[in-house]
């Protein structure tokens, strides 16, 4: 598996630190002064009601959204924007599934990032692609066009691409949504496998009862950071109440109306 493992020193724990992160849409901050620290080898749940900024945080980490303030450092290096060490798995609707590529072609794309413009695709690249396909159980499907896959298979194909890319940090937006029970179980196992390879997995998630089965750490958000850390410390009754019972912030009243933001009463997930 060493072709897929992170290329940095595997013994040192790779720390992702976020400090004072503020991100806003239309000048209303969606995330205010968020700070937390997580490490490779952890599986982190991003929790909070709709509009709490889960997707925003993932996109900001991936460098897809401009930050208003804040620093993100990984392995003691500041992440300014684009980085190959992070892999963002897009939501289903974002992908052009009719694109002329097979599962294998998609996984090879992950390799291209490491190769740059000119270096040729070598045997070891093909092997890395093979291993990623094998690890994500896509061997029988590798020649299928990507629209001819089920939802769970499509997700695995993107995970395999991130693996082939040798990403350290996997950013997943609601990966368990729309999957049936066996497929969820399967994804759970695969995520655990990735964690054991030393990857850091950060996934937004909305099904609170299943959190302890899948994740070992949690970040609770509601515009502000409510808690972050191991489940025992962060995933507590008190913190969950705070995150889900508080209406999400939509700016001062006049401002909210001007921009048509009406997230305020969307907290649908009152499981507790």
């Amino acid at each position: 598996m060493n072709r897929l493992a992170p290329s940095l020193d595997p013994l040192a724990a790779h720390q992702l630190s976020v400090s004072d992160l503020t991100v806003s849409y239309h000048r209303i901050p969606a995330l205010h002064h968020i700070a937390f620290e997580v490490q490779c080898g952890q599986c982190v749940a991003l929790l909070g009601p709709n509009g709490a900024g889960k997707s925003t945080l993932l996109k900001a980490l991936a460098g897809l959204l401009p930050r208003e303030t804040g620093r993100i450092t990984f392995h003691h290096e500041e992440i300014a924007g684009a980085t190959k060490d992070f892999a963002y798995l897009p939501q289903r609707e974002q992908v052009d599934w009719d694109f002329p590529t097979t599962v294998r072609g998609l996984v090879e794309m992950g390799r291209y990032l490491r190769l740059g413009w000119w270096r040729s695709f070598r045997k070891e690249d093909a092997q890395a692609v093979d291993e990623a396909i094998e690890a994500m159980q896509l061997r029988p499907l590798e020649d299928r066009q990507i629209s001819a896959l089920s939802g769970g298979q499509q997700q695995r194909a993107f995970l395999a691409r991130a693996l082939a890319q040798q990403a350290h940090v996997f950013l997943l937006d609601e990966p368990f949504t729309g999957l049936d029970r066996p497929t969820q179980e399967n994804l759970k196992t695969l995520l655990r496998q990735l964690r054991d390879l030393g990857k850091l997995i950060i996934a937004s998630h909305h099904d609170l009862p299943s959190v302890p089965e899948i994740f070992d750490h949690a970040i609770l958000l509601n515009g502000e950071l409510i808690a972050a850390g191991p489940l025992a410390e962060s995933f507590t009754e008190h913190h969950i109440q705070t995150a889900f019972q508080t209406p999400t912030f939509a700016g001062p009243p006049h401002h909210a109306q001007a921009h048509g933001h009406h997230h305020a009463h969307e907290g649908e997930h009152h499981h507790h």
Partner: protein
Amino acid sequence: MDWLTEPFQHEFMRRVFVGGALIGFTNGFLGAFVVLRRLALMADSLSHSLLPGLAVGFILFGLAPMGMFFGALVAALIVAIGAQLLARSSRLKEDTALGLLYTVAFSVGVVLISFVKVRVSLMHYTFGNILGLSDTDLWLIWGIALVVIPLLTALQRPLLLTLFDPTVAMSQGVRVNFLNLLLMAALVLTMIASVQAIGVIMLLGLLIAPAATVYLLSDSYAAMLWGGGGIGMFGSCAGLLLSYYFGLPSGACIVLVLGFIFSLAYLFSPRYGLIRRLRPARHFHEESLARWPEGAQDRGAAKPQ
């Protein structure tokens, strides 16, 4: 086979075929990017906006190909950049801005042409006349093909990432904006190379028909590039033969041949063709039942009754 070799007896027809084949390949190759990036409207706008540039170039420098080359280049740039500015400085979306600007530019071209004395030769640029291909035109075609194809081949990988998902590609350090700009430049250059032979109006057909054909036949990105080039080259040569034998306009013949090839793929493609879609798909009931263990199979088979 005499009928096939006969046109090539004439030195001037050989030149026409070499030019046509090159233009066909370059356009077909580039078409993959236009189809996958959904730039057909953009490409159409750019091709139409060449006309006023050609007219101004003609008025200023006469029929000198270089003057017309720069005229066309400037006109395409004005429309492309102007549309961006218009879209960013107002509520208009880019497609509306482009549509507006290119029709205005095309109208300017039409008006300018009616002021020019030798109207006929400029009309060639509207519908294309490959028989008017001069030596300089041919050199221009060679030059542009030899820049565009190697460049896009070298940049295949980052271009693929950009085409597939530009936002994610950008987050991974691919220089998406630069690549888009380069693609636009390649597009404009290729159009200028092709405008004499195919004409402003039919350019889009030569550009997107080959790629659209391969898109219905294959799931490979590389096949779209090289297959598109191949089909574009074949379509151009076949179209030129047609035009030679029946005395028909060259641009129209080429696009007709390509349209015919496309319709074959649309109907008969084994994977994505219309007939494949309409024909009831084979059911894998037997294979599906084979998954059950021996005893359970009876139950599975009995179920439908």
